[in-house]
């Protein structure tokens, strides 16, 4: 085992060697630098290996063989080993990335780089407080020097500012050390004790000064203007190194200091951290310069970790897991992103769209963003989970809320950036594919995934990356070079196969969802055979969503449920993002989804603290106020996914702008995830009161209002797919309403809606998508008269609208029948009025869909269009068959569920004897209805056919036009603003109040960010003032609090 001091020694030796080199031997000097860094990394790695595998003991190193304070004292423990490894590896790859700059600037630059890395190593390793100061000074000076590597002219000024502010900070640190020495008589961390500072006069001040100085090195808000200038103007490789290494090292220094300061200082660290986290994220929101944005993000992440450091009292065993996870995620992501920014020429974040066309780089970008936002399977996700559980467990709700709000804002700008990169027009300039830079980026990517695996292995909840569905989804990343139809086949076979292997494990409730996801999904995927080429990116996203859904219904504990939830959210986000104009809608989708996910996280965290039981039982055992909170949080979280009114504004755009085969997936299948969550929640918890309010009753109203307003908005929509999207809001409202009835039949109805909605919404979306594909527009008034050209699509829509509107004999009627039976035994009567009203309104928009698209006048330009492609039609025809079958024998699907529900709602089940289904109140015989209707219809049709057998078939303008004749189909097709009387009578109900509400919130956040940015004037004096103000404020709070 090589001693840790060799790390520092190696760096020093290399520096001296560089001094001996001739100025012209640059390549050799560079080689020495790389070797030194590599060697340093090797030592760290060796130690990490020793700690991890052989369970080695931490090694104390005393130079000169004497005890402190007379010698330098270093310690190599597991955290130190890991952090130095991180720092040295980042240093190594930065050096690799900096190859050109270093070769140009010569050995001095290389030496400074080595000094920087060494200093950071020193900060981590040292146990001596004065040495800490020395290493800090070294780091500061090295930073100043490395700034010169940048080609940006502002870099010099930024470095200068940095030096000035750092000197002020160093002064604080030095004074603090002097006072501490005065107070404690020692300079070694291990010999100082919190009591020393408390006992000695001025001890507290001494610690405060040291602490504040070290914290200031972490660039807390608002004392961080200088740091942002560095991030923005430094060479990206160095900015990455700076963001990773100095953050890691300084955080560890803060950690060491906090041990000295005792628990009293933890809240201070938390406070500074969380304020920084939120403020920096807020400031990043309006930011458009990529590096400055990354700078803000770095500041925010470090703030978050600082806040975590302040929570070490409650994190216990998970402390290193959480903090380490965040640092690891931050390191891999920030280094990677900074390095990527070096490849992109434009400094505007829109310019990142140039990455498109480089699948590996774009995958790296996506991974880095996921790392930063803490999505599974990355370490940040585990950390977020443990942190939330710990915070909720110890009642620190406000902190949890603040952290999650900050994280949501962060996700907002990061995903906006991602959206720009994936969707905006590619700029003309290509990226510079420097092989050493790409190597570094790929290393960061590999590190990110390695961390993901590592943290998964370390996690107490099992490794996310071991889940079969997720692995299946991820394997499509490797298969992406295959043609689409091969991947499609693999996907279908995989999903169906998984179902066949696993279907026996599901109870009837889950089985319904499993069938919809794992059988229904492949049916929709049939339509994907229509796509040509390779369809890069589609299958990984789609399969990720399906994997999430599959894991969701298989999940039995909170953690895996939440993992699945996040997976399906991310997968569907990328899926939705694929639409032509879907970028803003995908963004609003992911923000709402993550917001909902955070609510769910909070709820789970609250619930998980109660008992370590599996999810369902744990929820059942909740009582009292916690139960109310958990229920509320989870319900709102799940209702975000079902797009209940108020939380619905993401849905229309997201569903409408998605691709033809994606819309049915996200509408027909994905929405069910929210319903599934609600079902699990309500089955487990039943009715809950929240400060005296019956939440389920509120949900009943929300469901009813969603049904009404969703439907109303749909009837005023001109865009076919948006119409269907609004209709989904209404339908989900119905289902929510059914669940909230909290009786047997309400649930049967909700499940029936789940099945029906899947079938007919998928069918209608496919049909509308096929028509839109052929006509090149989604605006219904531009279509018309397509019945003869696209008869099969017409049949699908016809059957669909009969089913949706609940007209017998199709299956929608069953839903209505159960609905009536359900409400007869429900407690609340008023919300029914609203649902009564929304039923017929559904009829209106559906009729509009079929009329304006398929009936009426055919337009000139559409005269020659063909039926939708075979693969789009095929699933529709399957759905027609399914609807018919489900209409005749609803018992096939519902009977078992009905029995299953008996254990939860023993009252009011259905009787399935014979061909007639009877309830407590009425009866219904689907087979008889079908036969009777068909008999009447058939005989009348035959009669009319017989009489009119010689009817003259006429063309579209052969209509009575008040003795005139139509001139153009456009002016004859009555389609636009079809329900004008309705708008006149009830249009006031669909004013976009909700949209305005959320827009206002977004505006306020942006404005706050914009105002906040004015703090950073670019003037070093102001920055110094910020620092002083920061010190004063913290001091004020410290003494006051």
């Amino acid at each position: 085992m090589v001693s840790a001091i060799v790390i520092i020694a190696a760096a020093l030796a290399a520096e001296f060697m560089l001094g001996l080199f001739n100025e012209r031997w640059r390549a050799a000097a560079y080689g020495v630098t790389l070797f030194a860094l590599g060697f340093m990394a090797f030592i760290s790695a060796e130690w990490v290996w020793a700690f991890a595998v052989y369970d080695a003991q931490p090694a104390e190193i005393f130079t000169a063989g004497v005890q402190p304070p007379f010698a330098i004292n270093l310690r190599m423990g597991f955290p130190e080993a890991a952090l130095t490894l991180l720092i040295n590896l980042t240093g190594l790859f930065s050096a690799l990335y900096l190859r050109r700059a270093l070769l140009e600037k010569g050995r001095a630059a290389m030496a400074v780089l080595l000094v920087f890395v060494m200093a950071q190593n020193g900060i981590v390793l040292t146990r001596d407080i004065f040495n800490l100061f020395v290493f800090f000074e070294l780091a500061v000076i090295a930073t100043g020097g490395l700034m010169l590597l940048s080609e940006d002219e502002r870099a010099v000024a930024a470095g200068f500012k940095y030096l000035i502010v750092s000197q002020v900070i160093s002064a604080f640190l030095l004074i603090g050390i002097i006072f501490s020495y005065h107070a404690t008589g020692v300079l070694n961390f291990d010999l100082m004790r919190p009591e020393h500072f408390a006992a000695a006069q001025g001890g507290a001040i001494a610690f405060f000064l040291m602490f504040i100085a070290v914290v200031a090195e972490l660039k807390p808000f608002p004392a961080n203007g200088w740091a942002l200038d560095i991030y923005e103007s430094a060479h990206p490789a160095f900015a990455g190194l700076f963001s990773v290494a100095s953050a890691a090292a300084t955080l560890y220094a803060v950690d060491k200091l906090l041990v000295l300061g005792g628990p009293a200082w933890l809240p201070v660290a938390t406070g500074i951290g969380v304020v920084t986290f939120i403020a920096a994220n807020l400031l990043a929101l309006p930011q458009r310069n990529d590096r400055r944005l990354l700078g803000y993000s770095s500041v925010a992440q470090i703030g978050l970790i600082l806040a975590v450091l302040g929570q070490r009292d409650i994190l216990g065993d998970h402390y290193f897991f959480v903090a380490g996870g965040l640092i690891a995620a931050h390191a891999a992501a920030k280094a990677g992103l900074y390095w990527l920014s070096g490849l992109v020429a434009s400094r505007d974040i829109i310019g990142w769209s140039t990455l498109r066309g480089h699948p590996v780089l774009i995958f790296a970008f996506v991974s880095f963003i996921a790392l930063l936002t803490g999505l599974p399977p990355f370490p940040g996700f585990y950390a977020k989970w443990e942190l939330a559980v710990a915070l909720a467990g110890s009642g620190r709700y406000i902190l949890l809320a603040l952290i999650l709000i900050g994280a949501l804002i962060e996700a907002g700008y990061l995903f906006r950036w991602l959206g720009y990169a994936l969707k905006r027009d590619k700029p003309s300039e290509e990226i510079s594919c420097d092989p050493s830079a790409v190597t570094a980026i790929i290393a960061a990517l590999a590190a990110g995934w390695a961390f993901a695996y590592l943290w998964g292995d370390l996690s107490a909840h099992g490794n996310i990356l071991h889940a079969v569905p997720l692995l299946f989804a991820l394997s499509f990343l490797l298969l992406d070079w295959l043609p689409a139809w091969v991947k499609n086949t693999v996907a279908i076979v995989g999903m169906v196969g998984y179902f066949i292997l696993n279907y026996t494990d599901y109870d009837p409730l889950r089985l319904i969802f499993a069938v919809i996801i794992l059988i229904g999904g492949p049916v929709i995927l049939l339509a994907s055979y229509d796509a040509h080429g390779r369809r890069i990116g589609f299958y990984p996203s789609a399969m990720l969503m399906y994997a999430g859904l599959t894991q969701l219904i298989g999940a039995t504990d909170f953690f895996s449920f939440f993992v699945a939830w996040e997976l399906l959210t991310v997968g569907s986000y990328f899926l939705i993002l694929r639409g032509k104009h879907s970028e803003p809608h995908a963004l609003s989708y992911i923000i709402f989804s993550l917001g909902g996910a955070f609510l769910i996280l909070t709820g789970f965290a609250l619930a998980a603290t109660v008992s370590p039981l599996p999810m369902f039982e744990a929820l059942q055992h909740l009582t009292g106020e916690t139960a109310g909170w958990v229920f509320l949080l989870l319900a709102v979280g799940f209702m975000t996914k079902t797009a209940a009114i108020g939380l619905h504004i993401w849905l229309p755009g997201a569903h409408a702008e998605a691709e033809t085969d994606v819309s049915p997936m996200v509408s027909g299948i994905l929405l069910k995830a929210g319903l599934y969550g609600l079902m699990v929640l309500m089955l487990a918890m039943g009715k809950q009161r929240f400060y005296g309010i019956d939440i389920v009753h509120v949900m009943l109203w929300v469901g009813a209002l969603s049904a009404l307003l969703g439907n109303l908005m749909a009837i005023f929509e001109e865009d076919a797919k948006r119409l269907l999207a609004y209709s989904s809001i209404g339908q989900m409202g119905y289902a929510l309403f059914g669940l909230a009835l909290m009786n047997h039949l309400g649930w049967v109805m909700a499940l029936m809606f789940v099945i029906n909605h899947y079938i007919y919404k998928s069918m209608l979306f496919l049909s509308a998508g096929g028509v839109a594909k052929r006509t090149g527009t989604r605006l219904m008034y531009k279509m018309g008269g397509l019945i003869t050209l696209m008869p099969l699509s017409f049949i699908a829509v016809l059957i669909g609208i009969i089913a949706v509107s609940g007209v017998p004999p199709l299956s929608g009627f069953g839903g209505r029948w159960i609905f009536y039976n359900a409400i007869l035994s429900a407690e609340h009567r008023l919300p029914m009025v609203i649902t009564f009203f929304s039923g017929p309104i559904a009829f209106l928009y559906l009729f509009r869909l079929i009329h304006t698209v398929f009936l009426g006048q055919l337009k000139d330009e559409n005269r020659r269009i063909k039926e939708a492609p075979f693969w789009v039609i095929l699933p529709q025809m399957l759905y027609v068959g399914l609807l018919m079958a489900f209409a005749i024998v609803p018992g096939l699907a519902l009977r078992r569920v009905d029995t299953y529900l008996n254990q939860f709602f023993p009252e009011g089940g259905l009787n399935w004897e014979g061909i007639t289904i009877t309830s407590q109140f009425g009866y219904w015989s689907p087979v008889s209805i079908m036969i009777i209707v068909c008999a009447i219809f058939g005989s009348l049709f035959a009669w009319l056919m017989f009489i009119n057998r010689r009817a003259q078939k006429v063309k579209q303008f052969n209509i009575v036009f008040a003795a005139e004749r139509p001139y153009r189909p456009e002016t004859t097709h009555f389609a636009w603003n079809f329900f004008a009387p309705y708008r006149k009578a009830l249009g006031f109900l669909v004013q976009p109040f909700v949209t305005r509400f959320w827009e206002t919130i977004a505006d306020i956040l942006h404005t706050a960010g914009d105002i906040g940015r004015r703090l950073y004037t670019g003037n070093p004096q102001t920055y110094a003032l910020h620092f002083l103000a920061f010190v004063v404020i913290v001091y004020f709070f410290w003494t006051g609090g």
Partner: protein
Amino acid sequence: MKDELKKRLVKGPDGVEFEVDPLRDYYCDARPQVEPPAISKIVEDFFNWARAESLWILGFATGCGAIEMRPLMTPRFDAYRFGVQWRPTPRQSNLFIISGYLSTKTLKRVIRSYEQMQSPKYVMGLGSCTINGGMYWDSYNTIKRLDDYLPVDVYVAGCMPRPEALLAGFEELKRIIREGKGEGANKYAAEFDRYKANQKKVIHDWDMPDYNW
């Protein structure tokens, strides 16, 4: 001919251009056929009786005679009791009353409406204008003999005829129909070319298919 009726090049959503000929693509161009009566005489007699007792008039007024038709609905004359009623659309009407002078411009609309009625259908010429031009006998834009252009079943003379005369006309028409002589539609179909030639002689801007289904 209006621009909208001329042939035009149209680009489909798939980018392929093709020609649209409105008169051919948007209108059915079949010729009317002579429709034989029911095979069984009893059935045909029954239908003729029903047709006679259920005269649905197209609410279309060409000249001043329109004003004489209104009183028919009032209590004084009450045409409803004879099975007569007014329909707003030619699709549902069987009786076309040309109520007075008929300008060539209106003639075009009359022809279109007449052809949109379902056979058997009947035409009643009201007033001397429809018979020989009446007081408009030398006008440059009113026709003088309605039966040149449409098969007229019955004329009611007068300028204007009183509602009583109209009622008498209805009775006369009913008698004709009951006797199975109300075959104007078939006559129109049989002598289609002659009628068309007459119509086109006076209607100079013929911008519709020959038969308006």
